[in-house]
């Protein structure tokens, strides 16, 4: 069983190359029991490789790993597991049709005689759940009946069941909704109290500041700095990660005379999930749509794009009332939607960069417009995709580059109205900045942009106006540069009051 004994793991001077390309060039990292240690860095900085070295998946070329003062060497993940180290991968590793206990002990089922000792498996799982204070999950429940946050708990229990005292978490909030992130925080804090050493890899600045005790920054495989969280500001962190001062985070907002006529207007519209919507987005304008998960933000995007159309009210594009009942109509009218789920809805992962870029153009436009000699290269340059070539499969690209391909796909049909839902989720700081600049650039060229984001700093930094949703209806509108508090007050239904 997992006990309260604290474990210390120290990595010193770790180096690792793949095919002669150095990925880690001398990284130091110290994990202490009862401490959350965040590792930050851009994509390609070596975070994942470091995590895999710790988990015994990769063998380092140089450097030492010490567990409780004794030097160790891991021949494989099983060795790391025996040393009490477990990793929670970014993707869930659970079987939805099997029970919680069956998942926790998958591959390590206790046996009694010839049979799996199901009673012991359930009892041990329950003990671990109780230890974490998660007694609402029953070990015999099917994983498919659990919420995403509960699944994460199961994932953690699975790791703990190997007697892990060091837990590596790779972007643990990537799959979670806003309110579930808070639950994860709570869980991480409980693990810390119980003496577990936690290595926390995340892109999200706020999470790292909320949770971690110490932060290590990597850049290009090099150790940059390690400092107690309290001694760093987010500006420091960005400077360390990017290696330069990003200064102002976001591109300049639109000046009043940049704004053109109203391109998208939604008047008194609603459907089963949203109601009483009145939105106007002008050419050259970025309108932010804020709200908690489930407030109807994404439902607005889906309705405008005709996935789940409005059943009431009027939608006007360039002043002409339109009935948008399916995505095909929307695309023909010049409306584009960058969905929240890049891998699920945005890309054909096994197709090439080129095919993905031309996907919408080929599918939705007819005749000359679809055949028009398309300069895929120009499009890709415009969104600054870094790929091995137009024919590389999209699944091999980093998250940031994938998102740029999604944007290129829509630029290929020259939209008038661009709706973006979580455009920078799970991509690194550099790519984020590129996406921000691209969106502002498009606005300048006369596109009306409606932007949804859970990251309030981003939403506030980018938007010329912010519309806040609460419980399926608009709760109010705020001007550019409104405070996070003002947005949250509206989003949680507390009215404008003091906040504005």
């Amino acid at each position: 069983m997992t006990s309260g004994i604290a474990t210390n793991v120290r990595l010193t001077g770790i180096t690792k190359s793949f095919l002669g390309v150095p990925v880690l060039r001398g990284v130091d990292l110290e994990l202490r029991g009862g401490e959350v240690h965040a590792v930050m860095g851009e994509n390609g900085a070596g975070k994942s490789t470091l995590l895999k070295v710790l988990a015994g998946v990769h063998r380092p070329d140089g450097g030492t790993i010490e567990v409780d003062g004794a030097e160790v060497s891991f021949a494989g993940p099983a060795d790391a597991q025996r040393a009490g180290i477990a990793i929670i991968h970014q993707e869930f590793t659970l079987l939805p049709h099997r029970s919680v206990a069956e998942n926790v002990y998958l591959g390590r089922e206790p046996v009694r005689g010839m049979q799996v000792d199901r009673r012991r498996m359930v009892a041990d799982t329950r003990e671990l759940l109780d230890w974490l204070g998660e007694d609402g999950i029953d070990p015999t429940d099917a994983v498919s009946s659990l919420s995403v946050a509960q699944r994460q708990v199961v994932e953690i229990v699975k790791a703990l069941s190997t007697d892990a005292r060091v837990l590596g978490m790779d972007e643990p909030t990537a799959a979670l909704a806003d309110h579930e992130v808070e639950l994860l925080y709570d869980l991480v804090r409980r693990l810390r109290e119980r003496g577990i050493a936690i290595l926390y890899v995340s892109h999200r600045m706020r999470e790292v500041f909320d949770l971690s005790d110490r932060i290590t920054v990597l850049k290009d495989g090099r150790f940059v700095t390690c400092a107690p969280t309290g001694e760093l500001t987010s500006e420091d962190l960005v400077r360390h990660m990017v290696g330069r001062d990003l200064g102002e985070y976001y591109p300049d907002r639109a000046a009043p005379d940049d704004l053109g006529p109203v391109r998208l207007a939604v008047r008194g519209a609603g459907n089963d999930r949203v109601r009483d919507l009145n939105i106007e987005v002008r050419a050259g304008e970025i309108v932010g749509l804020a709200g908690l998960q489930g407030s109807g933000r994404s439902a607005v995007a889906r309705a405008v794009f005709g996935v789940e159309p409005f059943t009431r009210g009027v939608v006007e594009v360039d002043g002409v009332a339109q009935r948008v009942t399916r995505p095909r109509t929307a695309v023909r009218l010049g409306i584009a939607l960058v969905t929240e789920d890049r891998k699920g809805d945005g890309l054909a992962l096994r197709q090439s960069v080129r095919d993905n870029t031309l996907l919408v153009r080929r599918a939705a436009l007819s005749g000359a417009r679809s055949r028009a000699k398309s300069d895929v290269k120009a499009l890709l340059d415009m969104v600054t995709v870094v790929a091995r070539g137009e024919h590389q499969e999209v699944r091999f690209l980093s998250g940031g580059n994938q998102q740029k391909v999604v944007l290129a796909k829509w630029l290929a049909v020259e939209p008038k109205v661009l709706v973006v839902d979580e455009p920078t989720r799970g991509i690194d700081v550099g790519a984020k900045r590129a996406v921000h600049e691209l969106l502002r650039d498009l606005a300048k060229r006369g596109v009306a942009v409606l932007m949804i984001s859970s990251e309030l700093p981003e939403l506030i930094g980018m938007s010329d106006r912010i519309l806040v949703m609460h419980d399926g209806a608009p709760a109010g509108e705020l001007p550019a540069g409104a405070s996070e508090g003002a947005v949250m007050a509206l989003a949680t239904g507390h009215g404008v009051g003091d906040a504005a």
Partner: protein
Amino acid sequence: MSALEENTVPVTRKVTRPAFHRRLTPVAIVYIALAALLVVGSVLVGLRGEVLLDQAGILNIFTRATALGLVAIGQTMAILTGSLDLSVAYLVGLTSLIAAETMGGRDGMIVPGVLLALVVAAGVGLVNGLVITVLKANAFIATLGVALILRGYLEDTYTGPAGDVPRGFQHLGYDRIGPVPVAALLMLAVAALSWWYLSRTRPGYHMYAVGGDIEVARLSVVPTRRTIVTAHVLCSVAAGLTGIYLASRLGSGAPYVGTDAGYDLESIAAVVLGGTLLAGGRGGVVGTIGGVFILATLDTIFDDLEVDPFFKDVVRGVVLVTAVALYARRMTANRARGRLT
């Protein structure tokens, strides 16, 4: 962000249980459908002044269910593991010949005949499994290829029935207790053993894991290759048992006894009808047996009603499509619920 907390939901919140009719598992649906079919069939047959479930009717259903049941039990394991086996029909024919020819009418050769047939079957399963795991061929193509090899051998070597099963061994095919054939009881015993294997042993757990998500299984250090090979060996052994049983009923081996009955696609149909996901990872032998009995009962009813054989196939097709559509609906409903919680 304290404002957020009011909107948080405890991780531990219990998911509300769906209404009763939504909680019905595919297995329950299969057996309810079977019961309904027996009632409807009895009425229809009764309208002609006959009885569906008389001695002959029960015997007919069980006899039909025995051979298909054995093949389908094996197929269940292959499909649960995320694979499938299209070579079973030819293997049934091959093993019937091996058993009958080895016995050659001599009582003393019964045991060697049975064993040899099973060993050959296991060997074919091993080949299937290795082609899929080591050569990384898609299961559909791999087993289709093995099926073609077996067909080539059968066509080249045999023109018709061959071998001779001693009278003593024919008891296996014809003995019965009341209206229930002994062989049917043996088939049910095999089903029970398979149920135990799948739901109570580690290799069984691993079949569900590999079929559910092979990547997840691999990351959880499940021996994925061994699991797939095992599933194929067991699947082929089940087909071998079918061949032995059919040899006992026919009195000889017959090259096309498996393909004439269409056991390849029929067994897959029974498995899917029984609620096992064709993609693997969910389902089991209990449902499969229900599916087998539904198909056997349908055939018996059609025989009693003297239905046109083409119409028979139409009805079977409709039943299959309806069943799969029904399960698919339930799956999407479940998923939608999962997303909302």
